[in-house]
């Protein structure tokens, strides 16, 4: 059902990434013989697409599986099941050599500016390394490109012999971006790239990412738990809860007209820096359940303020409720 909705839409857009039924299960082993007693279902059947040059935001709280998805796409984590079609090729079926080739086209930026750069390499080496590895720019050309990339990312090119620890958090994040940019990728996975930065630096980095998209037509998978940031950068957004996408829509459609109770709660949880706005706040009770033992039926039902009988028994499917707006909730059938 969701497949057919997808393909109709596909024909209108230029799809770069097509994730189908992605699953990542971590086996839990106990005992001397390490028998598998259960699975942590970090990602449990996720579908979404990203078009060329667009930004798809993926939001959710800790443990929802969004970071795992990002890593699975780049095969930094091996998915258990599913298909990841990148420019038509199934990433999960590539062998080592083909994967290395494909890696040129997709890159990742991490959350922690203090842990994502090798402290023993200079900035120039860090930014230039991908190009040396894939032989796209060697020797003098490499140095020229590195300096060019540094300028694009608002870094002083004269600093290319410095080490990461000599830079601030915001600057380190830019180094990471320059490194990711060096191979002209078609897709960059941004794993909470601004969460660890100060507010005044966040806006610099977000603007930079926008500019880069405008200049180079890069698609972004923007993973975050901050909804305001996601709204700002994405053209389409997916909301995740406990390994599944519960709502996916165009940004404005999601934020102005969200349907899933979890999405509503998530949005109302964000404090707004505006004293004049009076809001209806839904404070969610309880904690995110253990992914080893997800609740029956709809995973959100124990905390859902609108829970019905059917929610406890049957897991809802993602269904279209508006143009390009799909929700996984039994409420939509009423």
């Amino acid at each position, binding site marked *: 059902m969701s497949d057919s909705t997808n393909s109709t839409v596909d024909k209108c857009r230029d799809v770069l990434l097509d994730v189908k039924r992605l699953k990542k299960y971590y086996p839990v082993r106990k005992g001397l013989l390490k028998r598998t007693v259960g699975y942590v279902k970090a990602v449990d059947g996720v579908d979404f697409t990203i078009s060329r040059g667009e930004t798809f935001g993926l939001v959710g709280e800790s443990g929802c599986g969004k970071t795992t998805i990002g890593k699975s796409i780049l095969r930094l984590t091996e998915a258990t099941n599913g298909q990841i079609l990148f420019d038509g090729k199934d990433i999960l079926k590539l062998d080592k050599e083909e994967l290395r080739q494909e890696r040129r086209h997709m890159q990742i930026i991490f959350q922690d500016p203090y842990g994502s750069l090798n402290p023993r390499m200079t900035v120039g080496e860090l930014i230039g390394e991908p190009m040396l590895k894939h032989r796209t720019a060697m020797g003098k050309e490499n140095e020229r490109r590195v300096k060019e990339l540094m300028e694009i990312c608002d870094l002083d090119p004269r600093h290319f012999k410095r080490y990461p620890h000599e830079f601030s958090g915001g600057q380190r994040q830019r180094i990471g971006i320059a490194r990711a940019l060096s191979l002209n990728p078609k897709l960059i996975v941004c794993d909470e790239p601004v969460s660890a930065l100060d507010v005044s630096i966040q806006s610099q980095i977000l603007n930079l990412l926008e500019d880069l998209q405008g200049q180079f037509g890069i698609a972004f998978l923007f993973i975050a738990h901050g909804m305001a940031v996601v709204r700002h950068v994405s053209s389409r957004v997916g909301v995740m809860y406990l390994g599944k996408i519960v709502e996916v829509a165009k940004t404005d459609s999601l934020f102005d007209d969200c349907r899933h109770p979890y999405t509503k709660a998530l949005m109302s949880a964000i404090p707004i*820096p505006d004293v004049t706005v009076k809001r209806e706040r839904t404070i969610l009770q309880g904690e995110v359940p253990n992914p080893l033992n997800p609740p029956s039926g709809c995973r959100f039902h124990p905390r859902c303020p609108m829970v019905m009988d059917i929610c406890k028994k049957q897991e809802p499917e993602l269904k279209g409720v508006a143009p390009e707006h799909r929700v996984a909730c039994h409420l939509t059938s009423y």
Partner: protein
Amino acid sequence: MKEKLIEVKGLKIDFTIESVPRRIIDDISFELYRGEVLGVVGESGSGKSVTAKSMLRLIRNPPGKIVGGEILFDGTDILQMDIDSLMKIRGNTISMIFQEPMSSLNPVFTCGDQIKEGVRLHQKMNSKAARQKTIDLLKMVGIQMPERRVDSYPHELSGGMRQRIMIAMALSCSPQLLIADEPTTALDPTIQAQILDLIRKIREEIGMSVMYITHDLGVVAETCDRVMVMYAGRIVEKTNVTELFTNPSHPYTQGLLKAIPRLNAKREHLYVIKGMVPHFADMPFGCSFHPRCPYAHDKCVEQKPTLREIKEGHLAACWKIQGKADLG
């Protein structure tokens, strides 16, 4: 009639790095009234955490040293107190909760033990009574099945629950003032909302004052009565919360408000405050914000502006607003 609970006058703190003392808190003064929530807003390097810690003299010496000023609590200067009196205040009349609940809780003691410790220290209860009080506290902070949780270890609980344990510890002796140093920054949004709601409820119940340190202006708008904005070790703006958001006067405050992405706004390029927060070893001359300020003038480079009233109840440290005639 508002009664002053805390009055800080001319606080100065130095940090000694490589044998050179650097001024990291530069002559700050503020008041906290009974029953109110005072927000202390700033980014990294602003000195907000250091200010909070200095309220209970938690600054480690070396390298930090309080070199001047007074912190008056109910009339008595905390900085001059003897250790015994200070210990009677800590955890008792003034409590503190921190950002990282995992590193603030001792992993080898049960949660119950940690809460009981404060209770028994300040309230002289026997073991049984202390245990009951602990269970009551856990209930108050919204922990399910408190009779079982009291014997849990910190690693068995989630981040949100650990933060509740910390709050329970802080509240165990019904403090008059709770200092909260970014207590929800490390938590997920829905858990953050729960914790903020909890603090609000408790405040209403026991009439506690709160000093809330954060960098999140959204939290400030929703929880605080009065706010002070800090930058590079100084207070640059201080007023009530409505006034701050409707009439931000300091260019830094204005910049911050413009730079944050809004949940209810449309997509467009974000405002950027150019430059970076200065390192405390490398403070600019005159106003510390001037290299990043769109309105910087000659006077700003030469002289440090002081915090002065620009409107009733609204103070700012900026030459542009204060002496309009000066810049004429």
